């Protein structure tokens, strides 16, 4: 089995993850820039963070034969701080040409505030200006429906090319509107409180060959990258064949991310016997 883990916060994880993921068939991880669990005060802290995920983490992953890519962005939660966000956005373009940076993400809404909207729009415009892919976070829990609608409205208004957008953390009540509008959608698996593996597989079954990717929560909170492997197992239990598993867990992320030529991992096929 070949697996791409498209949403993985390596800086919050130990090398045990890499070793076990490599053993389980993970060939690449992609790390979006995110909230570190506390609000940072200095733009330079973000610059060093972007250096860590674009320069250092690929070397750590490489020790286990895993390719590491990343996204850079001002995350939705800290976007509430407009002055800090604007300083961080000034530093973003210098990271976009780096060999493992695939685009701008994760951006979007956290609590659907006016400040978040300002920084979200600025980052979408930056992405259009630099022809970048974007990864969009949608709020968790009760803010998700409204946040997803606001996100779709903004993307429509800016005429952002839908095929270059991945909207993450969709659930049963938001997945259809995202897919119907032509965007890629991501299901994020959590061990507690949010999207579970059985529910994710229900959605995969319901939407068949849609532009739907699966990723694990893997950050500093209760999370584990191995929910993705649980999902592979649950799909097998429900009768998915190897070609379908390869399509969902490797080829779909390869197709979306491969729109940036720096992501050189191509979709694979299983040869008929």
């Amino acid at each position: 089995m070949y697996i791409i883990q498209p949403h993985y916060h390596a800086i919050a994880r130990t090398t045990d993850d890499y070793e076990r993921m490599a053993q389980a068939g993970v060939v690449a991880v992609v790390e979006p820039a995110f909230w570190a669990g506390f609000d940072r005060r200095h733009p330079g802290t973000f610059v060093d963070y972007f250096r860590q995920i674009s320069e250092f983490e690929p070397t750590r992953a490489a020790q286990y034969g895993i390719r590491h890519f990343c996204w850079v962005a001002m995350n939705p939660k800290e976007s509430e701080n407009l002055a800090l966000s604007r300083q961080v956005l000034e530093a973003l373009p210098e990271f976009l040409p780096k060999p493992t940076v695939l685009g701008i993400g994760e951006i979007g809404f956290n609590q659907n505030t006016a400040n978040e909207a300002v920084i979200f729009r600025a980052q979408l415009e930056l992405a259009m200006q630099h022809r970048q892919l974007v990864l969009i976070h949608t709020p968790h829990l009760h803010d998700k429906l409204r946040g997803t609608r606001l996100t779709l409205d903004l993307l429509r208004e800016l005429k952002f090319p839908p095929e270059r957008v991945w909207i993450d953390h969709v659930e049963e009540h938001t997945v259809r509107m995202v897919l119907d509008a032509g965007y890629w959608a991501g299901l994020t698996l959590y061990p507690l409180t949010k999207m579970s593996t059985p529910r994710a597989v229900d959605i995969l079954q319901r939407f068949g060959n849609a532009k739907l990717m699966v990723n694990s929560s893997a950050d500093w909170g209760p999370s584990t990258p191995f929910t993705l492997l649980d999902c592979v197992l649950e799909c097998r239990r429900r009768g998915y064949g190897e070609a379908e598993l390869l399509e969902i867990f490797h080829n779909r992320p390869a197709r979306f991310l491969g729109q940036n030529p720096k992501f050189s991992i191509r979709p694979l096929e299983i040869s008929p016997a």
Partner: protein
Amino acid sequence: MTRLRETIDREWLQGRFLVLELAALLDRLDVAAAKNESAVRTDRRIELLHRALAELAAPSATPNRAERLLELYSELADVHYSAPLSRHRPHHG
């Protein structure tokens, strides 16, 4: 903070998660039922599941829902195990 408020704060997310899991499970059963309706309708376990849901939704004077549900599910165990027990009933005299 009151004890009730503390309990709600602590349990709210997990409760939301469990109710959603249950909803998804019922959806899954509906999909299966659409393919093989008669078999699902006559399965004793489905009937018990719906009785359990009714128990959960009913007002409770005492906090013993888990106990009552386990007693309910014991009916299923009775169905499964009554036959072997009767087969191996000891003979006297």
